[in-house]
């Protein structure tokens, strides 16, 4: 019996955005007890190059998908730093080298570091929040050589052994950035700072009138940091924050990532803090 002709699946942009490309895990680096940086290279046609601050939807086949920021770009390889907190992230972190991961994207807005020439840039990251900022810092360091403004990087973590990318922090320091780290509490012998990231802001060299800030971390931290920066005289419109909401489609179709009128997979995750975002973050969501 002749089979009825089925129309071929159209490779529309929407369908492409929803279909994962296969990538292979070629490297895994342990960053902390529960956080790993995974290096992936394309098996299929590589996806478009991501910009610092954008994210991919990573599939652990048979388990599910999670939004994970791009933490390193070594085209065609791409790095993601994943903290194993749930089913998908645990499966991704536990995948053997050579294993296959599904990747969709890149999605969302980016840090737009190219617009920051001449600004004093203050990068503030908490916990895993340094991952989406890592490539932005690298771009800003490259800018430093070009006679741009000053660059400061302030990172916060729960404890010294939870600080990400310690080698990078040293490298950024050597390249001229003002790098400070602080932790919530520390074991004996720690000679670094202990306290909230905001307690280090006084020591950060920047001119508020020509400063821009890039902030990523837990939302509570973002609110406190943004308020402290505004108190220091930084214009709210010059503060960019990266916000997290539950992501499903990644492409502005499902509405899961809504924050007021914004769809954070499309209009974010990187958004200017000033104006409506500051107001939306004050609203009490249930």
């Amino acid at each position: 019996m002749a089979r009825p002709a089925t129309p071929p699946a159209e490779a529309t942009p929407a369908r492409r955005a929803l279909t994962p490309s296969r990538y292979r895990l070629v490297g895994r680096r342990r960053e902390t007890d529960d956080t790993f940086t995974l290096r992936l290279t394309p098996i299929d046609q590589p996806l478009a190059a991501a910009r610092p601050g954008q994210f991919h939807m990573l599939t652990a086949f048979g388990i599910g998908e999670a939004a994970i920021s791009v933490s390193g770009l070594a085209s065609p390889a791409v790095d993601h730093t994943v903290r194993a907190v749930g089913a998908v992230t645990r499966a991704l972190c536990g995948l053997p080298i050579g294993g296959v991961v599904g990747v969709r994207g890149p999605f969302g807005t980016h840090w737009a570091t190219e617009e920051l020439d001449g600004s004093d840039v203050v990068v503030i990251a908490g916990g895993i929040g340094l991952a989406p900022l890592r490539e932005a810092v690298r771009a800003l360091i490259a800018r430093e050589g070009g006679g741009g403004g000053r660059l400061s990087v302030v990172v916060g973590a729960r404890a010294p052994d939870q600080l990400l990318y310690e080698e990078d922090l040293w490298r950024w320091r050597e390249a001229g950035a003002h790098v400070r780290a602080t932790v919530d509490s520390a074991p004996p012998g720690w000679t670094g700072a202990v306290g909230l990231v905001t307690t280090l802001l006084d020591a950060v060299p920047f001119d508020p009138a020509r400063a821009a800030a890039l902030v990523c971390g837990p939302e509570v931290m973002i609110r406190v940091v943004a308020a402290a920066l505004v108190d220091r005289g930084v214009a709210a419109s010059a503060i960019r924050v990266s916000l997290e909401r539950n992501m499903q489609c990644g492409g502005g179709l499902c509405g899961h990532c809504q924050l007021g009128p914004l769809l954070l997979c499309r209009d974010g995750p990187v958004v200017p803090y000033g104006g409506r975002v500051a107001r939306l973050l004050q609203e009490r969501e249930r």
Partner: protein
Amino acid sequence: MPDTIAQLIAALPILEGLNAEEVEQVAGCSRNVALEAGQLLFTEGSRADACYLVRRGRVAIELHVPGRGGLVIDSVETGDVVGWSWLFPPYRWVFDGRAVAPVGAVAIDAACLRAKAEADPAFGYRLVQRFAAQMMRHLQSTQLRLLDVYGDGSAGHATG
């Protein structure tokens, strides 16, 4: 020529806004101190008879836990004041204070400063206002750290 103690005090952000006469009042109770990395400024349970204003370096606030040693629960950075036990009875330190880098500080005799503040309540109020502002910042930092926002993801994150 080295700065006078009054000049050092006037340059400290925490005492910003005090007039010259008030700075002299504080200077009259103060001396300049230098500590090496590792040196203790005070220990838990000892008399809190001095206030330290950090001009450079870092002081760790530690709590000794048997079997674990001195856990670092806070740090005091350049421009900040170390502890407040000298301001309130029973004037006894609750933690250890240790220089974790070479520290330059102004040490103020606590009894001397308290006596001057009581004799001139307007001066005392302006002084306490400044210390209370620092206290509030440290308290807020502590409260937010209690949330453990970098912890297991149940606090501070909007995804779940």
